[in-house]
């Protein structure tokens, strides 16, 4: 490819081939008047590709680096030095402070409260929404009932409607059934708004399974739930993992639903983090802020680095809606 780019205007195959053989001959006797000898590894093209990727990677990693180093410095060092420099004196005090002492304006017991709230929100929300969505997907893929596809289409279109449009009706709905402001209410909200993507994921997966399996199970007399629990569930562990990754990172990172549908004592970690960092009272402690930010990002980052390819598969599935 490198060679070809040096040749200008050689649209005919024959021409290209003769030029290529010319090149080969020239490089053999070492008297080639034009064109450098193409090197194996460090050609200009490779330097450009790796150079660009390296620079871009540095840019992408920079914020993570800044978070880490800032959270390990003391405040005097932050005031003097530059934010990219590694800490001269490593201190874990900001981490301790962010976890257990930082103030949100309401209370001063740090991010730990938000962390446990987020755990209490994320675990049931993820499990419940995945169970509901997988049953939906299974019913749509294998039990094609009348009107199923129509409801599913509405569901997928619903995924594009800005949440702001459905926010207030949802508040009224939750108030009517007495769940507004409670943990159960937020779990319901996450189940409802996570449903389009996860249902799509499961529907596509179950459709791709051979139909004979389903038919054989029916001939053997298994019913709806029997087939779901004994045939489908054991076969779809990978897709359940993908759904888990999507839902856990999505729900953990949620901010809007957390502020709208819960009371302050139930605020998830993201909301609490924002309240800590952007609170107006007191002196800004940048190291504590960065430790808190990093702490909040740690769960999705851990899932991302641990899951690798599955994460990509999950977002690709979620991305190609419809």
């Amino acid at each position, binding site marked *: 490819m490198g060679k070809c780019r040096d040749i200008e205007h050689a649209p005919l195959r024959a021409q290209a081939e003769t030029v290529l053989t010319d090149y080969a001959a020239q490089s053999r006797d070492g008297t080639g008047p034009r064109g450098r000898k193409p090197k194996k590894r460090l050609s200009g093209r490779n330097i450009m590709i790796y150079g660009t990727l390296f620079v871009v990677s540095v840019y992408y990693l920079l914020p993570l680096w800044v978070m880490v180093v800032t959270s390990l410095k003391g405040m005097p060092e932050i005031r003097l030095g530059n934010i990219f420099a590694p800490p001269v004196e490593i201190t874990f005090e900001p981490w301790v402070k962010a976890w257990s002492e930082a103030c949100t304006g309401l209370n001063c017991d740090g991010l730990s409260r938000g962390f446990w709230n987020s755990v209490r929100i994320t675990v049931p929300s993820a499990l419940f929404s995945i169970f509901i969505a997988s049953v939906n997907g299974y019913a749509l893929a294998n039990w094609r009932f009348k009107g199923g596809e129509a409801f599913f289409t509405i569901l997928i279109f619903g995924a594009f409607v*800005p949440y702001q449009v459905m926010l207030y009706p949802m508040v009224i709905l939750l108030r009517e059934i007495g769940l507004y402001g409670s943990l159960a209410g937020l779990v319901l909200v996450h189940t409802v708004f996570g449903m389009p993507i996860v249902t799509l994921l499961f529907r596509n997966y179950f459709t791709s399974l051979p139909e004979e399996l389903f038919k054989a199970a029916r001939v053997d007399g298994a019913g709806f739930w029997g087939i779901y629990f004994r045939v489908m569930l054991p076969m779809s562990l990978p897709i359940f993992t993908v759904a888990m990754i999507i839902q856990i990172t999505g729900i953990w990172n949620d901010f809007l639903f957390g502020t709208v549908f819960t009371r302050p004592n139930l605020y998830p970690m993201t909301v609490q983090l924002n309240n800590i960092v952007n609170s107006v009272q007191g002196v800004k402690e940048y190291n504590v802020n960065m430790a808190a930010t990093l702490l909040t990002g740690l769960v999705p980052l851990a899932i991302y680095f641990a899951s690798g390819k599955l994460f*990509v598969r999950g977002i690709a599935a979620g991305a190609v809606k419809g």
Partner: protein
Amino acid sequence: MPSDPVHARQGGTAPPSAARRPRRLLRNLTAKIAAIPMVLTAMVVFLGGTVWTVTYSFTNSKLLPRAEFVGLAQYERLWATRRWVVSIENLAIYGLCSLVFSLVIGFVLAALLDQKIRYESAFRTILLYPFALSFIVTGLVWQWILNPEFGVQSIIRAMGFEGFAFDPLYNPDIAIFGILIAGLWQGTGLIMVLMLAGLRGIDGEIWKASRVDGIPAWKTYIFIIVPMMRPVFITALVLITSGIVKLYDLVVAQTGGGPGIATEVPAKYVYDYMFGGQNLGQGFAASTMMLLAVAIVVIPWAMLEFGGKRRG
């Protein structure tokens, strides 16, 4: 199963239709019961909620929703409000830049990763990790990096360029670009992954043919590969656009809409009027405008995507 269609047909040659009707309803009954949550979500929340909000955007609801219709008054007030106009301008600037840069950067990065390079998965992991982080975390990190006292500006000044000024988060004229930098950092990885998948789906013969014909690589990309990847670009476009309209958390975390109202966005306007300003009518009207913006992009796309399939 009482609802097996085969048995029903064998039972009698011409069963009276009155006897068949309840059977048809009962067919796959468990499946229908199991799908009730989906049906409720689709009909009550998604469809019902949207219709409800649009309907109530024509009322003069204040603290509580009231069915007192006032025509387009809320919309007139909305467009007469300076903050809303600024929000729309910001969204237009952010949206346009974010669209162009995401597509270009995403495609270029994907093309670079597609050169059969070493350490591809390492590079990909690095480029995608911001996508795992929440907008709140993204906003707060970039708020810190762009802090004029300690961040990029102070470092470049310390290097000797005393007059250097780069304080997007404190300068109302360019504040929205500070948000853009953070938004691109978080989101381009996703577009890159989509584009990479698209590039991998392209037949290798195309490359061989263009190489034999001596067409430079960049020309092949622009004139052959990009047109071939039209579906991927459209998917990316729809994704980016629906993401842009939802832009909210990032602004709240990074600038809180400031300085002044320089970085206000529509989603924040909706939230503030609905839950802070006790002015529901404005909130409903503003969210209906957001819905309209999404519909303009999504409906043509859906007609292209699904309308074509049905015919073919």
